[in-house]
């Protein structure tokens, strides 16, 4: 059973990528909808299996490390696999209606979409450093292609910029991997961790970790390496922006987090952890401020991603030389932040796309008075905004609560200020948009209601991010399941 699930999970996206290469956009849509169904069922099945039996190592094709590809199928990984299935299927569904099928180059949307999905799964499940690199490259290249689908000159500029940043990040990461391999002779994360546990860390391994984390931070758009993100996410088609903000930046962060949790305690240092946390905090403040200053709706959402990503990097200081309980709280908080931001940001981008479609302009002022028409999308946008402001009862709130507890518990109270201020700053930019929508002016009298299916998708995602807050205990319980170490090298 598990074998089939794994096979389905890893090979459907690749198979569908190839399949949709052969079709035009309309056919691709039909083919894709079947693939999405398979992916969702398989992801859900895997999640349920892991929730029941606990995680395991999986040697692809029966070949174990160091020869074969080793997959680490644990609670955290399958949770992200499921998140990917939810967000990607929503974006795929949305894109099928939203994207204009008559432009010839849009047919490449589906293959890129599927390559992206397979790359994401590879990263969530990857157990060794080189395969993670391959997964990352697959993600980056298809993401760049998706941004370029925007078609205009600005989109091409943004995607080129994105490509350069992504390549630079990959190079730094690869350099770190090479250094680590030279020192340990192993590429498996678990293998290196075992070696580290038994022997003192060799000189220079700090540099390897620093290189890898820096490269991954660039790909995650951590302040001050965030410049490439807003143009790329702002100009892409809304479903693409949703995919990029909700999932793609999380993949590189996920690798950085895994590396830190495995190696940080031995190779890392307090100063480095604090520095990363500090950059994250700066991202929260600076990203929110810039989001507040934007005139374009989608730019607000894009800069908000810069800010929200900043929170994730608090994982570094909050798990370094703290008690087991505090570290667990921090990890749970960050996991929830990843999930809830993924759901909420996808909802927000999709809803923003609908609103732009409705009023015919991407500017915030164009929203004056649209709340009069009670658009569904505004409501979804608002719900997602509540999660970004980390107000209860959303997943964002539970995440913030856990991080607050972790900050207070570890004695690093200065992060408390960041967490609280971050919530208020995000309220500032979210309410700026609500404010516009409540304005009573004569201008906005025409309002185009987009097709219902476009409106329902962001609503579902926003409701999920809301429900996550109420059910976070259940979601988090899967994350901390016992892990079967039998397959570990």
């Amino acid at each position, binding site marked *: 059973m598990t074998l089939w699930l794994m096979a389905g999970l890893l090979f459907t996206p690749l198979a569908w990528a190839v399949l949709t290469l052969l079709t035009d956009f309309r056919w691709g849509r039909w083919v894709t909808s079947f693939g999405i169904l398979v992916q969702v069922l398989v992801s859900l099945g895997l999640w349920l299996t892991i929730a029941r039996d606990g995680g395991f190592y999986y040697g692809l094709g029966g070949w174990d490390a160091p020869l074969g590809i080793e997959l680490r199928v644990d609670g955290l990984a399958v949770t992200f696999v499921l998140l990917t299935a939810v967000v990607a299927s929503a974006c795929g569904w949305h894109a099928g209606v939203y994207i204009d099928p008559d432009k010839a180059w849009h047919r490449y949307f589906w293959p890129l979409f599927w390559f992206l999905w397979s790359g994401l799964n590879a990263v969530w499940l990857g157990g060794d450093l080189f395969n993670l690199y391959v997964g990352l490259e697959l993600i980056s290249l298809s993401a760049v292609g998706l941004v370029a689908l925007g078609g205009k000159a600005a989109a091409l500029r943004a995607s080129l910029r994105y490509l350069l940043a992504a390549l630079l990040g990959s190079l730094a990461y690869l350099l770190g991997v090479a250094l680590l391999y030279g020192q340990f002779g192993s590429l498996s994360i678990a293998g290196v961790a075992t070696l580290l546990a038994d022997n003192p860390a060799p000189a220079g391994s700090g540099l390897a970790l620093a290189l890898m984390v820096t490269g991954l931070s660039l790909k995650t758009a951590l302040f001050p390496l965030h410049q490439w993100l807003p143009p790329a996410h702002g100009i892409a088609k809304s479903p693409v922006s949703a995919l990029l903000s909700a999932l793609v930046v999380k993949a590189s962060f996920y690798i950085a987090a895994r590396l830190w949790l495995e190696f940080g305690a031995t190779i890392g240092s307090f100063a480095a952890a604090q520095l990363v946390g500090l950059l994250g905090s700066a991202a929260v403040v600076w990203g929110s401020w810039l989001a507040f200053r934007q005139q374009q709706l989608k730019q607000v959402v894009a800069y908000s991603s810069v800010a929200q990503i900043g929170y994730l990097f608090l994982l570094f200081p909050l798990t370094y030389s703290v008690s087991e309980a505090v570290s667990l709280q921090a990890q749970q908080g960050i996991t929830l932040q990843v999930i809830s931001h993924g759901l909420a940001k996808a909802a927000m981008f999709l809803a923003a796309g609908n609103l732009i479609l409705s009023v015919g302009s991407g500017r915030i002022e164009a929203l004056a008075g649209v709340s009069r028409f009670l658009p569904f999308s505004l409501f979804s946008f608002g719900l997602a905004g509540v999660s970004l402001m980390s107000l*209860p009862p959303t997943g964002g709130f*539970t995440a913030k609560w856990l991080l*607050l507890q972790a900050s207070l518990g570890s004695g690093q109270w200065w992060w*408390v200020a960041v967490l609280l201020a971050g919530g208020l700053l995000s309220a500032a930019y979210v309410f700026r948009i609500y404010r516009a929508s*409540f*304005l009573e002016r004569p201008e906005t009298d025409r309002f185009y209601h987009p097709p219902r299916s476009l409106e329902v998708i962001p609503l579902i995602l926003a409701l999920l991010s809301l429900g996550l807050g109420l059910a*976070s205990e259940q979601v*988090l319980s899967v994350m901390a399941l016992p892990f079967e170490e039998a397959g570990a090298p």
Partner: protein
Amino acid sequence: MMLSVWLPVLALMTSLLAAVVIFALPEQGYRLRTAVNLGAALVKLGLVVVMVWGVFRGVDYGVSFTMAPGVAFVLKADALSMMFAGLSAVLWLLTTVYAVGYLEDSPNRSRFFGFFSLCVASTMGIALAGNLFTFFLFYEMLTLSTYPLVVHRGTEQALKAGRTYLIYTLTGGAVLLLAIAWLQGVAGDLPFREGGHFTENDPALHTSLIGIFVLLVAGLGVKAAVFPLHGWLPQAMVAPAPVSALLHAVAVVKAGAFGIVRVVYNIYGVEASSVLGVLEPLAWLAAFTILYGSVRALWQVDLKRLLAFSTVSQVSYIILGICLFGPVGAAGGLVHLLHQGIMKITLFFCAGNYAETLGIHRLDEMDGAGRRMPATSFAFTVGAFGMIGAPPLAGFITKWTMGTGALDAGMDWVIAVLVLSSLLNAAYFLPILHRLWFRDPPRQWPHERRWGRLETSAWLYWPTLVTAVVTILAGVLASLPFSPLSWAELIVLREYSP
């Protein structure tokens, strides 16, 4: 048995579902929307009555589940929560009736009533919350659901008021969250419990407990409009009259005051708070706010702004009451939670009636309005005398009980505050009454509308009269069981002998 689990959930869900249904209904569905609204309000009132009876007999209503690691979502009905829930349910019904009439033929009604129901659902959640975490959940939901009501008119002024409102309340919320998280770190997840949790506390904890208390009160004080955190309240007066009525009588300011009551009684415990020495400063602050609000009210020319400053003053009676260390004073403070709600909503209904019927907004336009609108002016007079504390109205019961409580507790200075505040209340309310009844009406009202036989629309007329009559009855029948005073005494009895 199942019923005891489901009743609080149902009471919460009625308004929540009403909100969802109303959002889904088309803007033109006037009759259906009104029916849904009133139906839900009636159902809820019924559920609350059943629960009040149950709590009186000692039934435990409650439900809880773990929401996040270490904290639970708890709904629980105790005597104190039923006081607030009852107020919310009664006033929701009356205010809905009033709002239907007030917003007749105005745009965006679907949006308005949707958020109105959400706002009431939040107050219900605040009432039934069983720990600080759950309380905070609904407290923030209240902020979010009242914002669209405050900015409902969509004018620049309304949006500006909305911004001020958000800056105050969201910052207050952040401070409150910090306090709750800190408390959780110090003592774990504490359910609200009669008598509190810190009766025998570790002296080593004193500093952090005092710090947490200050933060809690600061966070809650924003909504309770305690000086100097009251700045948003007079500005929020741009909202439509039913919103101001609800905001002042039950929703926002009361949520803050109710939270402070919860913290003092059910988290710290009166005795522990007194040992920590936090009650006396709070009492001084409340006393200052009482006088400050009244003094500021003296200089107002706009009726609704005057009422806003009067609210600033009146809500602090509740806080002052619970700071009086003794059962009698406490009952006085708690009963004001209901009394102020009823009296203030009467006054706001009247203000709305004057504005809708005659176009009156300023005090100097009110000359002779008593002849044109006798029933409304009667209600206004009842509310005003109630606020001043004239016997036998509700406000008198409050002040009398608090006064005796203060003497019992040996805090004689409180009597002076009460007397001075009553004089100030008289100083700003009596001139209005004089204008209403003893001056000649102008030849033409600023903006007059007529509705057949009654002096104003029936939707506006009856709720105003009902609340005025309740104000009288709450005073006259104070010694009967289930009167606000008896219920407050029940709460105090359970608090002081847990």
